């Protein structure tokens, strides 16, 4: 009984730790990649697009951070975030490669 409780506490702690790592550093990387993507696709001058994307990025970060503590499965959370990150990274890379930077 005590052993089972100990195990569940440890499992709970690992769950929280994995969600926290997803919600902070992993979220920052994902938000950065998404911000680059938005800055590339927003219409208007490059300066306007950069400012617009930067102004928006905190909303992206906050929503993703909350999702990290609400979704059921930590495994799925990590997979989705890494997948989304890779998709944004690829899109960013292609956009910069084809469009260039100032």
């Amino acid at each position, binding site marked *: 009984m005590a052993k089972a409780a100990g195990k569940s506490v440890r499992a709970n702690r690992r769950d929280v730790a994995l969600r926290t790592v997803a919600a902070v550093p992993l979220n920052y990387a994902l938000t950065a990649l998404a911000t680059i993507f938005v800055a590339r696709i927003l219409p208007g001058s490059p300066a306007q697009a950069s400012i617009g994307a930067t102004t928006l990025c905190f909303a992206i970060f906050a929503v993703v951070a909350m999702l990290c503590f609400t979704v059921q499965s930590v495994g799925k959370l990590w997979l989705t975030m890494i997948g989304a990150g890779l998709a944004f990274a690829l899109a960013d890379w292609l956009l910069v490669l084809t469009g260039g930077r*100032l």
Partner: protein
Amino acid sequence: MAWLHTWVGLVLGWLLYAIFVTGTSAYYQEEITQWMTPEIGSAAVASDKSFAAAADWVQHKAPDAQEWSIFLAGKRAPGLQLYWTNGPDAPADAPTEARLDRQGREVKARETQGGYFLYRFHYDLHYINWYWARWLVGIAAMAMLVAILSGIITHKKIITDYFMLRLGKGQRSWLDVHNASSVLFLPFVLMMTYTGLVSLATHYMPWGIAANYADTEKFYAAAFPYPSPPEKTGAAKLAPIGPMVAAAERNWGMAAGGVRVLNPGDRSAQVIVSSGVDGNMSARPRSLTFDGATGRLVSAHDPSGAATATEGVMIGLHAGRYAQPILRGLYFLSGIAGCVMIASGLILWTVKRRPRLADPDKPHFGFQLVEKLNIGAIVGLPLGIAIYFLANRLLPVGLAGRGDWEIDSLFLAWLAAFIWAAVRPSPRAWAETTAVTVLLFAAVPIVSALTTGRNLFHSIAAGEWIFAGFDLAMLALAAGFWTAHRRIVRRARGAAEGRRPQRNTAPA
């Protein structure tokens, strides 16, 4: 998600409280600076005359200067700030900055950072590198944003709690105070948190710029043009500044806030007039560039892009420089409510856990640590700010490094509050530190009257509303801490009486 709110709130609450207290004071930054430089009169002068007088002054003071910048921080500013770049022949230690009053006379005021220090502390902190300080502040702000948003989503009775405040009921009251101050001012705090992050957005998220610019300088040149002096082409008298400022003000329909002159006394001279910080809700100024020799308008810069306008208004909403007296008062009161929200949340952490302690007289280390840090942080900072104001009046006017001494006084007093909290029993430390804070705030108008000859009655009679208002604000703060002190003493007495029968049964 409730545990997330509790623990993130606890760890970052002390920092957020300090950010909120000093940030709230920043709504009266100019007034605090005015009070801390009592040598400067507060007579208002039309800004074109101020700028013209300042230009005359710097022309005499630094005739070979390559560039001047004259700033006026809005209608409430006690004076103008001047910076200039000396010519190549000037000695290395020649002055490059000065403060003038609004008539263009150099101000010989006591050295102080004034309200500006409290404003800068609220995002740059002090004694630590500003780069990392901004990251710390940003992490705290982002955590707060997530805590607020998740709080709204998970809060089931937000409308009921909105109208619920049950005083004098112990833990329930602290929860109600926390909820009332949070929910009532939630839109304000949410707005401040997001716009605060936007104010330092490129510090936290430089990748939006990096997406379009390999060279960051090119972004800043496009978004916030700041031309450098052109090649000199031969001597020519600088046209009068006053008419250019007046023309710019007519053009915008609002006051000017800055004048930059490149190559004064040369045919290539340029005069760039920027709009004032308090003329518009957006924090991004407009500017007009005039030919310095002829005074003719050359070009106009108007930050009118959708993103710039949005960002500028967000930052403007945060800083509230546009706010007229009544709105400014509301900003200040909302800021105080934010401070109360954070302080009551921190106190709630201990109030909630006290009944669960094995022995309430000897709490475990973690509980004691939180309680001591609460005292040092919640009471210690206002106590330190009172000392900051007193130091402004009591330190010798000619003391070298006086501005830094004032700041050091604040932190020494704050540190003393932490030490006091650590060595005294917690209930006593609460009572004693609040009592000292009452005395210190009440002493500010008295010490000021004795050291400057400006007393409250004289200020009211003379219509010096900034000085009168400051003194009255100090008395109001003293009264606020007096109320808190009375409650703490009554509560401690009540608790002692409640425990007495138990004590009697225990063998002494």
